[in-house]
């Protein structure tokens, strides 16, 4: 059953055709990989489905309903939460507060209720806090909630970003290079975390350069090169495809 169905996405930036007729179908409960050499258009594609970049053309269906990724803030409400390639946390807020912000879209207490501190407002605050603590534990940084986000280690920051995204109760979790800069141990932990997330019913779309990670983790993979889909299928098949090999080896060697 398809969770996200994207058809014919194109986008041009001046002289560069960043995306040409890219289509993708992500089934519910999958971990779906998006790979390709640098500059292939992967992050642009992410930006399109999360509303940061407007496509020139394309159709989108989320959970069976037509989906217009125009206003960025509505994307999270619709059910897609993302992380960023170069970690965009709220640096001066604590880890706990970062995750609590993630709950914003699913809560509604406004200024008046906050000032008056109505019972409903207090209950909602307590619930937000409890859920945020839960999520911090879930990703493994439960002990660091009171620390400012910018003081966390790189790996912990990535985990925090995931916790924050999960706080929005997404249907689809879109991760932009979550393993970048991680060492071997951290990658193993990340993989376990992602599998746990999938087991809890969240679908995952993943941009990654680490081929081993992708092959071991993803159910299906799309390969982009120069804005076009050159292969789509199961990791093992994609890995052996000559066009894919050429796309990677035909350029500067990608470190695995």
């Amino acid at each position, binding site marked *: 059953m398809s969770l996200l169905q994207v058809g014919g996405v194109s986008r041009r930036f001046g002289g560069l055709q960043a995306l040409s007729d890219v289509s993708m179908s992500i089934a519910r409960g999958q971990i779906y990989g998006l790979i390709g050499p640098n500059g292939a258009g992967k992050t*642009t594609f992410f*930006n399109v489905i999360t509303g940061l*970049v407007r496509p020139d053309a394309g159709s989108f269906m989320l959970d069976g309903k037509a989906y217009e990724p125009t206003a960025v803030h509505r994307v999270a409400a619709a059910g897609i939460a993302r992380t960023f390639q170069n970690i965009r946390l709220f640096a001066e807020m604590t880890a706990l507060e970062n995750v609590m912000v993630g709950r914003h879209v699913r809560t509604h207490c406004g200024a008046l209720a906050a000032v008056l501190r109505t019972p409903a407002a207090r209950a909602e605050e307590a619930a937000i806090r409890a859920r945020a603590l839960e999520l911090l534990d879930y990703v493994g940084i439960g002990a660091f909630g009171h620390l400012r986000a910018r003081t966390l280690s790189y790996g912990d920051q990535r985990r925090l970003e995931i916790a924050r995204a999960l706080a929005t109760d997404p249907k689809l979790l879109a991760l932009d290079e979550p393993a970048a800069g991680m060492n071997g141990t951290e990658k193993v932990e990340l993989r376990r975390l992602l599998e746990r997330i999938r087991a809890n019913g969240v679908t995952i779309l993943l941009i990654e350069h680490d081929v081993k990670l992708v092959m071991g983790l993803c159910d299906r993979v799309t390969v982009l090169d120069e804005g076009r889909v050159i292969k789509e299928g199961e990791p093992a098949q994609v890995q052996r495809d000559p066009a894919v090999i050429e796309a990677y080896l035909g350029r500067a060697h990608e470190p695995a």
Partner: protein
Amino acid sequence: MGSFDTFLQQVFNGLVLGSLYALIALGYTMVYGIVNLINFAHGDVLMVGALTALSAITLAHATAPGLPGWALMIVGMAAAIVVCILLSLLIERVAYRPLRNAPRLAPLITAIGVSILLQTVSMLIWGRNHLTYPQLLPADPIAIGPATVTATKLAVIALSGIIMFGLLVLVQRTRLGRAMRATAENPRVAGLMGVNPNAVIAATFAIGAALAAVAGVMYAAVYSVAHFYMGFIPGLKAFTAAVLGGIGNIPGAMLGGILLGLIEALGAGYIDQLSGGVFGSNYQDVFAFIVLCAVLILRPSGLLGERVADRA
């Protein structure tokens, strides 16, 4: 005077005003281009220039009463330029350089602080009252076609034109100009190419200050008055002009300055008629503010600036 004559007169007035704004705007735009800072204190440098010149002129006239008006003017300008250059170098070194990598709020606050300091010190030195600027050039009205001009106003336009041309040559043809452009684009790489960014930035401030000094003297000469608060409004309007032309863009600042001067002069001249007497020329200053807000909201890159790219 027929309505076309009035129009020409206002156009001329606009050119005078616009030349002044252009000179001041150049200081803003060059500094912004190179260090991404709105030099809030720039208008006050103009003021210091005008008042310094006044003192110099008074002193020169007292020591050598035979000097002709235009010579006094030159003495005044020279004094203003020297003082303003030194002042701006000091300010850059002490207040702005340490904050070069700080987030936006700090340099802005500091600049406001410097602005206040300049005004207060000027208040202490020259007092609070409005000081009269002597008429140095012959004040007899000259008729050019249907418009009436004075020698001072003509001098403003001519001098501004020469200076602006000189600046363009400097930026495009000389080593310093190339260094300035390179540092504006990418200070670190420019450094790798042998450019000393600190020196280039200092030079940029100095040039901007010199232009402001000249503009300040001419402004005071045209309006025959100088006082410690005189820099605020022209400074803000010149900033508007710089933004209008595209902040960071030198020809843009020139264009923006002239345009703003014309808008203001024509607006002030015709607003009475246009608004059926509701708004008079006392709303003149509002024009600049409205233009400023409109440009920043509707087309922040200005007329000649680059379109601000989409950021993912």
